[in-house]
C-alpha cells in the first residue's frame, strides 16, 4: 500500500512541472509558434526561482521571478521569429542554449545549496483520510494549480473567443491578418505565456519537487514537454494524460527496481519514454484527426507584412 501511495502521490508532484511547461508550450504551438527552447526556459526559471526563494524566503516571489524571466526569454524568441522572421526551429534552439547558460550564470554561487521545500497544504479532514488523503490531499499548492491550469487551458482554447482567435492564427496567420486580427501581438502573447509557464515549471523543480539548485537539474524534462505536446496531438487532456503517464512510469520504474525484481535496470530506465510514446501514439493514431488538430502554420515563417 505504501508503494501505491508513493506512486500516486508522487505522480501528481512529478507531473506538475511538466504540466505547467506543457500547457504553456501547447498554447504557443496552437498559435503557430514552435518553441524548442523550453529546456532552457525551465532551467532559467529553476535557477531564478531558487535564487529568489533563497533571498526573499517567499515562494510567491520565487515563482513570479521565474515566470517573468521565462517570459522575457521567450519574448526574445517571439521578436526573432515574428519581427525578424527567423526560423522558429533555429531560434528556439538558440534561445534554449542561451537559457541553459543563463541558468548556470544565475545559479553559480548557489550551486549545490538547498532551500526548504514548498510546504504541503493542510486540507484539514481531507488530508487525514487514510490512503486517499495521503495520495491526493497532502500536496503543495502548485500541484492543485497545475490541475486548474489544465482545465483553464482547455476552456480558453476550446470555449472562448480568445481561444478561437489563437487557433485561427495558428491555422492561417495570413487569413487571420486579413480579418484584422493582431497576429504578431497575439502570437507574442502566447509565446510569452509559454515562457512564463516554463519558468514556473522550472521553479517548481528547484523549490518544491527537488528543493535544491544544481546546474543541469532539469535533465531533459523540457524536451519531454516538447514531445508530449506533439504526441498528445495538441489536445489538452491528452497532453495532460501524457504528463501524468510519464510521471507515474518514472516512479514505477524506481519502485520495481527497489522490489528487487530481476529486470535489467537499463530497460527500466527507458520504460517511461517507451510507454508514454506508445500510449500517445496509439490514442493518436488517427491521421485525419492529427491533421485536424495540428496547427497548420506551426513552424512556418510568418508571411504577413
Amino acid at each position, binding site marked *: 500500500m*505504501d*508503494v501505491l*501511495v*508513493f506512486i500516486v502521490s*508522487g505522480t501528481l508532484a*512529478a507531473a506538475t512541472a511538466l504540466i505547467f511547461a506543457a500547457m504553456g508550450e501547447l498554447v504557443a504551438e496552437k498559435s503557430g509558434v514552435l518553441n524548442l527552447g523550453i529546456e532552457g526556459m525551465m532551467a532559467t526559471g529553476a535557477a531564478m526561482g531558487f535564487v529568489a526563494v533563497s533571498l526573499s524566503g517567499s515562494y510567491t516571489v520565487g515563482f513570479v521571478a521565474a515566470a517573468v524571466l521565462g517570459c522575457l526569454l521567450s519574448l526574445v524568441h517571439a521578436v526573432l521569429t515574428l519581427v525578424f522572421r527567423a526560423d522558429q526551429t533555429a531560434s528556439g534552439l538558440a534561445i534554449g542554449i542561451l537559457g541553459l547558460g543563463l541558468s*548556470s550564470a544565475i545559479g*553559480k554561487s548557489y*550551486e*549545490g*545549496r*538547498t532551500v526548504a*521545500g514548498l510546504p504541503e497544504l493542510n486540507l484539514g479532514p481531507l488530508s487525514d483520510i487514510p490512503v486517499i488523503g495521503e495520495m491526493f490531499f497532502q500536496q503543495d499548492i502548485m500541484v492543485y494549480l497545475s490541475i486548474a491550469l489544465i482545465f483553464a487551458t482547455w476552456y480558453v482554447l476550446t470555449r472562448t473567443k480568445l481561444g478561437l482567435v489563437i487557433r485561427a492564427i495558428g491555422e492561417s496567420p495570413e487569413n487571420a491578418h486579413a480579418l484584422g486580427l493582431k497576429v504578431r501581438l497575439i502570437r507574442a502573447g502566447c509565446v510569452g505565456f509559454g515562457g512564463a509557464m516554463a519558468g514556473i515549471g522550472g521553479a517548481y*523543480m528547484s523549490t518544491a*519537487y*527537488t*528543493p*535544491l539548485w*544544481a*546546474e*543541469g*537539474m532539469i*535533465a531533459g524534462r523540457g524536451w519531454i514537454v516538447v514531445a508530449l505536446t506533439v504526441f498528445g496531438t495538441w489536445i489538452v487532456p491528452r497532453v495532460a494524460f501524457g504528463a501524468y503517464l510519464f510521471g507515474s512510469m*518514472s*516512479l514505477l520504474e*524506481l*519502485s520495481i*527496481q*527497489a*522490489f*528487487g525484481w*530481476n529486470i*535489467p*535496470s*537499463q530497460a527500466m*530506465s527507458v520504460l517511461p519514454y517507451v510507454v508514454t510514446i506508445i500510449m500517445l501514439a496509439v490514442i493518436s493514431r488517427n491521421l485525419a484527426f492529427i491533421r485536424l488538430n495540428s496547427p497548420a502554420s506551426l513552424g512556418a515563417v510568418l508571411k504577413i507584412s
Partner: protein
Amino acid sequence: MQRRKILLSLAAAATLALPAAADDPMKIGFVYPSPIADVGWSAELNAGRLAIEEAFGDKVETFFVENVPEGPDAARIINQMAAQGADMIMLGSFGYMNDGISLAERRPDLTFIHASGYQLADNFSNFQSRNYETSYLVGMAAADVTESNTVGIVAAFAIPEVVGMINGFTLGLQAVKPDVTVKVVWLNSWFDPPKAQESARALIAQDADVVYSLYQDTPSVVTVAEEEGVWVINTSSDMKEYAPNWLLASQIADWSNYFVASAQATMDGTFQGEAFWGGYVDDTVDVKSWSSSISAETMTMIESAEAAMRAGEFHPLTGPIMDQDGTERLAAGEVIDDASMSGINWLVAGVETRIPQ
C-alpha cells in the same frame, strides 16, 4: 634550399632542447565533470588542487574547467589545456579516459592523472580510492540503527567501484546483523537530482529506514532523508549541514597527498604512470561526522575494524563470501586480490537487487 632546411631543423632542435626557465611556474590543468559546489565529487577533487597550490605556492599555476560533459567537449578542453602549456592535467571523470590517453600518446612531455579509469601509460596514471573500506564501516553503523532491517541504496551506475562499495557495505551490515535486506535502485545516471530524490522516496516507501547515497553529487538524497526522518549515509564529501539530525556518517576521499606527490614527480621529471589505489593505509579515505546515535558497542567494533584497515591487516572482502546466486566466490580466509576487486561484477548474498547485465 637545402641549407635553409638544415637551418630550420637546427632551430627547431634548439627550441626543443631549451630547458624551461627555472622561475616559470609549472602549469596544472584540472577538468571536472560537474560544477564545483560546496560539496560533492568535483569539490573533493578541487580540494586536491588547492592542496597543490598551498604546497608549491607560486612555483605552480593551476587552472580548471568545471562541468565538462564526457565526449567531444572533453576532448576539446583537454587538448586546449595542452595547447595552453599545461605540464600536468588532472582528468576528473571516467569518461575522459580515451581522450586523455590519446593526448598522452601524442604529448609524452605532459603528465596525466585520471580518476577511476584503467588505462595506463608512462605519463598517464589513474587514481582511485578504496571506498569499499569506508563502506564496510558505515555498513556496520547502518546495521546498528536500522529498525525495519531494510536498507536502501541509491546507486549511480553498476561500475566495479560502485559494486565493490555495495559489497563492502553489505558485509559491514552483516558483521553486525546477519539478516538485513539490502535494496538497490540503479539510476543509470551520474547526475539527475530529481531522479535521485524519487529513488530515495521509492526505497523509503518500501520500508528502508537507512538510505545510502552512492555517488549523488548533490544533497538530493540527503535532504529527502532529513525530511522523511530516515538515516542517510553520503559518499564523497561531508553533508552534515544538509541533514543535521539524520546523517549517519559521510564517506570522504582526500586526494591532497596523491595530487601533491604527482605534481612533485612531474616537477622533478620522475613521474611514472601507475595505478594508484589509496585506502586507509595511505590516508586517502575516511569517514566523517559519525552520528552520536550509533551504539557505543558498535562504535567500538567500527573503530577496531578501522584500525585494522589502517594497519593493512584487514580486507572487508575476506572469505567465506557467497554471491547472490549462492556460488562461493572466496573460500574461508581467502582475501580478494586487487585485480579481482578492481573488476568486481558480482554482488554478495544479501543484496536483493541484481546487477544490470
